[in-house]
């Protein structure tokens, strides 16, 4: 039984929007998504080797949300995120080698082997913080936006979270406060219908998350999270509103997690979601849809795509080699940064 049906426009959604953007823009979005996909697949392929001793939460199927949103951000804008960080970190410009070193628990990981896959942070590119508690980063991002407002800074802050975060009080408290203080903040909710293996129907009454968010007194939009252009446009509008003093926005991006909650592989067979539902979303792959449009519009050929793939794979394999050859931390490293000076 298909409980969660795709309600977007499919390819039509690309056709309707696509001509507004130059080839370079399209090509960058597609390449960024493909890069995340290939990195995730390589991580997944090697995970059983047990060299990456870290819980992983793959974003395969959800590349369009990170890439579409980050296309609307500059390096100065801040992004906070949850446990599912890979897409956010890479799309925001986080260094691939530092990410893989972190996954391999090496001393030169992006946070010195203190975070692992759930805490990919690189403040130099505005990847400002993550939390492994579902709504944990939302109040933090709210405070970051409060600081920006008090300092009259020009940047926007975005916080990514899954739909289950809306069930924790901290999310409601943050929406209320952000609306009250008109903070320059974008609440980016990826609704993929599942929290670990708990489907939405066991957790929330049947209602629109967009309308729920509007009840806090801030603008809210629902977008097709499988369409990178739709995500980009909603993010761009929200970020502009934040930068221009228009306050916070709630974006609900409807998307689908192709893999299990954590680890490698698809766990649909365990029965928490129906196989036909899972299969139905396959045809809506955010990369395939965008590529189908690009090929149809004469913007990208199969050959172009293969060139991209091969370029990216060279980079990815080099980064894996670099990570696996990097040094482990030493015992003394444990004792630093417990307290700040």
């Amino acid at each position, binding site marked *: 039984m298909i409980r969660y049906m795709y309600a977007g426009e499919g390819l039509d959604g690309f056709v309707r929007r696509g001509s507004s953007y130059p080839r370079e823009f399209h090509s960058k979005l597609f390449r960024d998504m493909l890069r995340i996909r290939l990195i995730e697949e390589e991580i997944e392929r090697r995970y059983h080797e047990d060299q990456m001793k870290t819980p992983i939460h793959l974003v395969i199927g959800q590349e369009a949300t990170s890439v579409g949103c980050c296309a609307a951000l500059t390096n100065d804008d*801040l992004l*906070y995120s949850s446990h599912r960080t890979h897409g956010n970190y890479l799309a925001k410009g986080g260094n691939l080698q530092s990410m893989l070193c972190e996954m391999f628990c090496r001393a030169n990981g992006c*946070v*010195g082997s*203190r*975070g692992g896959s759930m*805490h990919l*942070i690189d*403040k130099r590119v505005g990847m*400002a*913080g993550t*939390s492994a*508690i579902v709504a*944990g980063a*939302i*109040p*933090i*991002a*709210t*405070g*970051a*936006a*409060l*600081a*920006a407002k*008090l*300092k009259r800074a020009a940047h926007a802050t975005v916080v990514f979270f899954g739909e289950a975060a809306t069930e924790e*009080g*901290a999310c*409601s*408290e*943050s929406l*209320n*406060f952000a609306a*009250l203080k008109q903070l320059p903040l974008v609440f980016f909710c990826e609704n993929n219908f599942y929290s670990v293996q708990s489907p939405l129907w066991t957790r929330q009454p049947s209602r629109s998350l967009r309308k729920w968010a509007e009840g806090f007194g801030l603008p809210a939009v629902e977008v097709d999270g499988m369409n990178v252009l739709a995500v980009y446009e909603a993010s761009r509008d929200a970020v502009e509103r934040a930068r221009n003093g228009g306050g916070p926005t709630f974006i609900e991006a409807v998307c689908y997690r192709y893999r299990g909650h954590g680890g490698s592989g698809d766990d649909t067979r365990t029965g928490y979601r129906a196989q036909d539902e899972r299969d139905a979303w396959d045809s809506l792959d955010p990369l395939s849809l965008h590529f189908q449009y690009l090929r149809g519009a004469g913007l990208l050929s199969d050959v172009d795509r293969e060139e991209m793939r091969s370029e990216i794979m060279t980079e990815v394999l080099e980064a894996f080699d670099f990570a696996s050859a990097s040094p482990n931390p030493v015992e003394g490293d444990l004792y*630093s*940064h*417990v*307290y*700040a*000076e």
Partner: protein
Amino acid sequence: MPWDEGLVNSLVYDAPDRSEGRVLGYAGAIREALDLALAADPGVFVLGQGVDDPGSMFGTTKGLHEKFGRDRVFDTPLSEEGMMGACAGAAMNGMRPVYMHNRPDFILLAMNQLVTHASKFHFMDNGQTTVPMVVWAAIGRGWGSGAQHSQAIQGILLGVPGIKIVMPSTPFDAKGLMLAAIADNNPVLIFEHRWLMRKDGIVPEGAYTVQIGKGIHRRRGQDLTIVGASHAIELALTAANKVAAEGIEADVIDLRTIKPLDVEIIGESVKRTGRLLVVDTGWSMGGVCAEIGCLAAERWLEHLKAPVRRIGLPDIPTPAGFTLEQFYYPNVERMSAVIRGLVREQSAVSVP
């Protein structure tokens, strides 16, 4: 009379000697610290439910919103977790929030953001971020504060890495430790005690800090060591002065800060006196008393002439009724009795 004003106003403390300097009340000393910090650093802001109301957090924030504006001194929604996280997020981005609560009980709503987030970011991101924030609350006692408005939660937080816990006992320390806490680049919790809010003391004008992590002798003696902080050490000092008439001379150490703990000052004294009484405003079990008692067993056992004693709260929720409260809380008489007993006691430990 709102809440426990009458009770707190009726408490009698020794008047400070005015020849030693300017006399200021406890709440006024905290207010002065906040005033100085707000004026000195545009990154400082003060928030909390009621910081701009007529009660103004026992007077500690009185008029500050008028002087510095409501962007920097503001009332909050009753969203303890959300606001605690917002403080952490602001602190991670160049601000120095001071988040004030009437009672520590309310901080329990924010444990996720305090314990799982604010205290750990600096470590988790390998030092990329600092989280300079102050969380302030006044422990309640008496007049029906009861099980949910009197909790002294410092023991629960003592084992959390990455935070500091400050517990002043004098107006001088309240001001100096508040200024030190605001200047500190870590999350610092300040647990005041409601019963100290009307105590007067000598408080110098202008900015000064009291070092976090260092205790101070309030009394010198050789017969036993009494160690603790906040209102517990205030009571213990009164008891120590009382038993001095009987020839018992106590070494009384006000820790000022319970995390980081000044192990050195305790150790020096215990090695000298051989007897240790630990006092705390919180539960004895698993708290400050238990930790310091354990330290004595680990490090100074061969110096002990008697078993370590502790006076905290029993493993019971606070009753609200007046009579039961009298049984529940330590007082000067009970502390004096324990001190006499401890000094008389011979070592239960056989030392080779």
